[in-house]
């Protein structure tokens, strides 16, 4: 095989402007936090870290985590080497809970941590979700509509708790019933979709979203501005949501992911393409307004 030879920098997109966004600053320096909770949640694992010195994060913010020992533990010094990004899923006193989906060496090592073991935590990082009434182009009294796919439910859990009664609906999509067990973290009032139909709607969670928005606009042709969509999940799902919401003029806040090395703006590695250029997700995200994304952001 011959690989494409082009290594010319792509110059056009430029660098996007800094985002204000709600932000709790992080203390300078990572903290060694003991694991005080480890429990399965469906096919995921919830790991709780006792972060005594740390501030309370805002929903949507994230932490860079690495085990204090055994990070890079394969024979021959293989990965993980860099810390990994995780949205805060719940806050219980000084304990920060992270919901972990094992997809590679870093998540495997983190999910296997024993109680009392310590992990390095840096955070809270990035900007959090903006409440419905703060979102540009939302109607007064707008309510939240939460849409999650798979592990994307993590930041929605804490956001759901923070919004308390102000959530009109929660729609979650999972691979199958086993994964869907994690939906319990968002309470009882949840619409479910699964790929295999083992529970809830057999199909995409975006079907549920479209249906919901349809119902809203049936009632009142102007009512879609009375909801703000908050979504987190795989890129294809988020792009579908972006298109659906753009079409209907519904404001949406998306929690995006990109591989990160540092989490605090140092490496310029975590960019996503927005309308005004490349934006670092770690300092100017991970929450991005759907309307800010470039058509070809994926």
């Amino acid at each position, binding site marked *: *095989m011959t*690989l*494409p*030879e*082009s*290594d010319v*920098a*792509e*110059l*056009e*997109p*430029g*660098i996007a402007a*800094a985002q204000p966004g709600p*932000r709790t*600053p*992080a*203390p*300078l*320096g*990572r903290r060694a936090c003991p694991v005080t909770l480890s429990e399965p949640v469906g096919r995921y694992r919830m790991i709780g870290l006792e972060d005594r010195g740390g501030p309370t994060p805002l929903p949507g913010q994230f932490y860079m985590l*690495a085990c204090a020992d055994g990070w*890079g533990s394969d024979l*021959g*010094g*293989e*990965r*993980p*080497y*860099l*810390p990994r990004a995780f949205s805060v899923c719940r806050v219980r006193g000084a304990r920060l809970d992270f919901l972990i989906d094992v997809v590679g060496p870093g998540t495997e090592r983190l999910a296997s941590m024993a109680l009392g073991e310590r992990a*390095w935590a*840096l955070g809270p*990082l990035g900007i959090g979700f903006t409440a419905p009434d703060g979102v540009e182009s939302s109607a007064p009294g707008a309510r939240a509509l939460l849409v999650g796919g798979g592990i994307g439910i993590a930041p929605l859990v804490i956001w759901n708790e923070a919004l308390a009664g102000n959530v009109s609906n929660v729609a979650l999509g999972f691979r199958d019933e086993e994964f869907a067990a994690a939906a319990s973290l968002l309470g009882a009032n949840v619409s479910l979709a699964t790929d295999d139909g083992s529970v809830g709607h057999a199909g995409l969670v975006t079907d549920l979203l479209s249906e919901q928005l349809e119902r809203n606009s049936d009632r009142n042709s102007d009512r879609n501005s009375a909801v703000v969509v908050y979504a987190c999940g795989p890129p294809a799902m988020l792009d579908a949501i972006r298109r659906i919401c753009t079409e209907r003029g519904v404001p949406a806040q998306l929690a995006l992911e*990109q*591989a*990160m*090395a*540092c989490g*605090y*703006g*140092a*490496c*310029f*590695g*975590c*960019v*996503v*393409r927005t309308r005004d*250029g*490349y934006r*670092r997700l770690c*300092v100017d995200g991970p929450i991005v307004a759907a309307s800010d994304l470039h058509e070809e952001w994926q």
Partner: protein
Amino acid sequence: MTLAAQSPGGGPDLSLRLAGLTLGFPVINGSGTFDAIAALRTFGDGLRESFPFAAFVSKTITPHPRGGNRPPRLWETPAGMINSIGLPNKGLEGFLAHDLPELGTLAVPLVVSVAAFDHDGFARMVETVGARPEVAALELNVSCPNVKSGCVMGSDPRETAELLEHVRPRTGKPLIVKLTPNVSDIAPIAIAAEQGGADAVSLINTLRALAIDHVSGRPALGAIRGGLSGPAVRAIALDMTHSASSSVSVPVIGMGGIQCGRDALEFFDAGANCVAIGTENFRDPVAGLRVRDELAAALAERGHGALQRVVAPAR
């Protein structure tokens, strides 16, 4: 210098003069591995009080704005990482207007890293940036493996000499030449930089590298190629630091895979006068201060002679 030269435990004075700069301790950052402005937004003003480096080296800026390479830009490797960031920056004008004023408020000397794609561009950068009072020194990035010109200028002694001829007359500020490791022999290039009037050399930049995605079998990075950094390259960086420091008498700033004070001490042993932290900043934002303290402890263990050698004014 306002920085505490003592480690918190009341360690030894590690301050030094390097290429005309006064440093509280011999640890700075590698260009492009710490963004002081983003870090201020993330960590707040706490960063000012315990800034992790004795001088701040900016990300490389170029004459015109650049968005950088298509993502993905990062790939993890055994004991290291590949980046294909592609020098995103606001361009000379944008930098002077937006970033420089804020960087000027830091309590440590500011080194601005510059690159261009021809001699005139380089000369203009050096002249314009060098004229700003906030700027203590300039670093010439002639070594970035992501951008064609950088590679060419820094991989040949004659090219390096010609570049210095063009830019040296444009500023009285100290010039640091950052060398690329993608060469057969780094000594002649260090010598060319010195003879051209460089006040110091820094090394190493990243090594050209490729990442393959296992699932697709295709290059994993948007820009295909990238640059390798981290502990994996340390032994190579040590060799080049030794080569360079044995062949020039200007100070040498050593970097490449430094994670802790012991690693830093290896660079001093190999002839460096100062070290820089790159990739380790990503894992630990205050790695600079930690390395300072660990270095002080390691020097203390070696005894007084060792300490003097490290903090002695550059040859």
